[in-house]
């Protein structure tokens, strides 16, 4: 009975086009943000902040980026790892070359650089479609990782090819990277950045650009005939998607692991982000968050649950089980709901709207 929109009338098109048109949702999201800003840092321990919330936020951003390209524009990409590497290495070069540059500016510039690379590797999409394009993006993946691994310039001639984030302040005296950075700083910084970028993504997808992407995704020929230029739509999707992914890569290297080598952005990373998008829901910003949460949490749960309920299991068994459960869950979700967690969430909401009446 609580989740009812009856009686809420929209008096303008503007309010009807809001992201959360229903009041309950508005209250819900405000509460969620409040908990995220105040509750989580107060309640969650260092372990939860460092190894669950931080990677969750970084991955959410990467998943949003890929979702813009694959979920909204319909261009399947397996080059996510490569674009994350771009962000990480661009940010490293920038911040070591210009130490006085604020770290936020560094991340944004790294994103812009990644966007340029993304556009370049997006060019084949004008001629190649579907799985052929997916395989073609692997060329970007392998080439980029090879390049960052091969040329010492990217790592400032470190003998091992590993880059390590230098200490940088986000506010005077408050370090975001380096040994003095606290988990809470990292978390709050990420939370703010990811929230803003997610809002940007949402705005883009509900505006003209997003509609031209979806038109290309649903039927590229028809899109062309109503005046959408595939060149512009596809390349803009590649650019903006790589911008998001690039920032996620930079955050991964700087805020999460602190040091990184090019091999951390191997093809596995691309698949990992793709799975988040698939499980969360193609074409849904909320789904990107849900998918990231699912993939970050599942292995941790599988590692903890058997012990918690008193089941003795070798790590080997747990790890094999993890693979099997993960695979089975993907299949299960596809059969039950091909549109991912986001759709399940929506169905749940619709149910709630009618509750307690069945129809």
């Amino acid at each position, binding site marked *: 009975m609580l989740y009812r929109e009856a009686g809420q009338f929209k008096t303008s098109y503007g309010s009807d086009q809001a992201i959360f048109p229903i009041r309950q949702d508005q209250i819900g999201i405000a509460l969620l943000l409040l908990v995220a800003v105040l509750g989580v840092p107060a309640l969650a*321990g*260092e*372990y939860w902040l*460092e*190894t669950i919330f931080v*990677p969750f936020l970084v991955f959410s951003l990467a998943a949003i980026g890929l979702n813009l390209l694959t979920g909204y524009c319909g261009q399947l990409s397996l080059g996510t790892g490569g674009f994350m590497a771009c962000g990480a290495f661009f940010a490293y070069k920038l911040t*070591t070359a210009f130490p006085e540059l604020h770290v936020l500016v560094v991340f944004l510039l790294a994103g812009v650089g990644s966007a340029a690379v993304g556009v370049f590797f997006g060019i084949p999409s004008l001629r190649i479609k579907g799985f052929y394009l997916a395989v073609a993006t692997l060329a970007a993946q392998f080439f980029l990782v*090879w390049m960052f*691994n*091969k040329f010492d310039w990217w790592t*400032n001639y470190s*003998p*091992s*090819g*590993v880059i*390590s984030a*230098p*200490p940088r302040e986000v506010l005077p005296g408050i370090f975001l990277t*380096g*040994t*003095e950075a606290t988990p809470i700083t990292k978390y709050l910084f990420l939370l703010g950045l990811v929230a803003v970028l997610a809002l940007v993504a949402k705005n883009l997808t509900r505006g003209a650009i997003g509609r031209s992407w979806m038109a290309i995704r649903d039927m590229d020929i028809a899109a062309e005939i109503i005046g959408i230029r595939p060149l512009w739509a596809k390349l803009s999707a590649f650019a903006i998607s790589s911008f998001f992914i690039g920032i996620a890569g930079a955050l991964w290297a700087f805020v*999460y*692991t*602190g*040091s*990184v*080598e090019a*091999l*951390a952005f*191997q093809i596995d990373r691309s698949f990992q982000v793709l799975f988040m998008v698939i499980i969360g829901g193609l074409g849904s910003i909320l789904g990107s968050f849900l998918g990231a949460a699912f993939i970050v*949490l*599942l*292995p*941790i*749960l599988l*590692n*903890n*649950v058997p*012990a*918690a*309920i008193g089941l003795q299991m*070798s*790590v*080997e068994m*747990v*790890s*094999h089980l993890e*693979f099997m459960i993960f695979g089975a*869950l993907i299949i*299960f*979700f596809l*059969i*039950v*709901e091909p549109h991912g*967690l986001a759709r*399940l969430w929506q*169905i*749940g909401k619709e149910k709630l709207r009618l509750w307690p009446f069945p129809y």
Partner: protein
Amino acid sequence: MQLRKLAFAAVGALVIGGTAATPPASAAEQFVPLLVYRTGPYAPNGIPLADGFNDFMQLVNERDGGVNGVKLAWEECETQYNNDRGVECYERLKAQGATGSSVVNPYSTGITYALIERATADKVPVLSMGYGRADASDGRVFPYVFTLPITYWAGADVMVQYANEKEGGSLKGKKIALVYHDSAYGKEPIATLERLAEEEGFQFQAFPVAHPGLEQKATWLQIGRQLRPDWVFMWGWGVMNSTAIKEAAAVGYPMDRFVGIWWSGAEADVVPAGDAAKGYKSLNITGVGTNAPIFEDIKKLHADGKGLADPKNIGTVLYNRALVNSFYFTEALRTAQGKFGEKPMSGEQIQWGFENLDITQDKIDSAGMTGLLSPVKLSCADHEGGGSAVVQQWDGAKWAAITDFISPRRAALRPAYEASAAQYAKEKGITPRDCS
């Protein structure tokens, strides 16, 4: 509809289940986190390593009742050799036990890199035994990282010494090729080998192999059919090792001139290559076989049904390496207890124990580990401890040492460590400790 409900229920159950925490270890125990990889591409190497750790700590508890009465407690965490998993494991386990994690053995160069800053901030010693950053031997910049007994740079030096000796004392005009895993790990020896090539007058060429290393045909055609070097060194890992041996045999390269680093010299690296591997050599930082007296105790442990390892792994190269690794730790613990009292030690105290670690031949003998390791002595500035390595050879069925422990020429290596560490310190804004 039913299925949808099930899906909700499943997700819900997972979320609820996940919030429950694992029970903490008891108060009088010294907790050791074990970052293992029993699955994934490197499982063949990870399994004997993990088994060795388990058996040694079990032995210490069962035979000696712990270290000075403090029992060891440990928990395995599967990393799949994955950097972010490694970080997660480290964070999950670091607060466990009475005093938190007292040491972390990442067993992956990538995880080591990822943990250096975190562990330094948390005051948990990182023991990267024969892997990780070579320049971390400079304890002034890396107070919490220990590289005993020997680093990759020193390993490269030992290889060159060995080749030099085999060539009758001079490498002038000889050709040496390096086949390396194209990653942070594989690149470690290049600078050292380039320096030595200049000093000793041999021609040096490096051949990268892309991860995971199943593809080496082109590399070995270049080596075996074009360059035809006098020696081939290898920094390989996992499937790359056995593939390299097979491809080397396929181009007819002589195995006794092919020397791998200690991560290219376990059973799992040669067995898949079959007969082709006969005669292949590698370095090792520990002794091989089950001749040391400690194996009597281990056999007894297993006979009593208290062994934790798969018996077929006992005495394998990586099992023995894990024994020595655990021994380093228990000795550091003992050293720390000598100063701070016979109770569980904190990471900071263990760090002191490592810096004052002095494993003499007497201690090795009395621990029943004769032949398994060479003496090491660490200090505030020197975290490598002057260890050494042997050359071993595969005879088709087992590894056998063919040299004594060879010491690297550290006089030349030490300045390189310090220069590299200084660059790191500058980039990170670290002021090196004063160790004098």
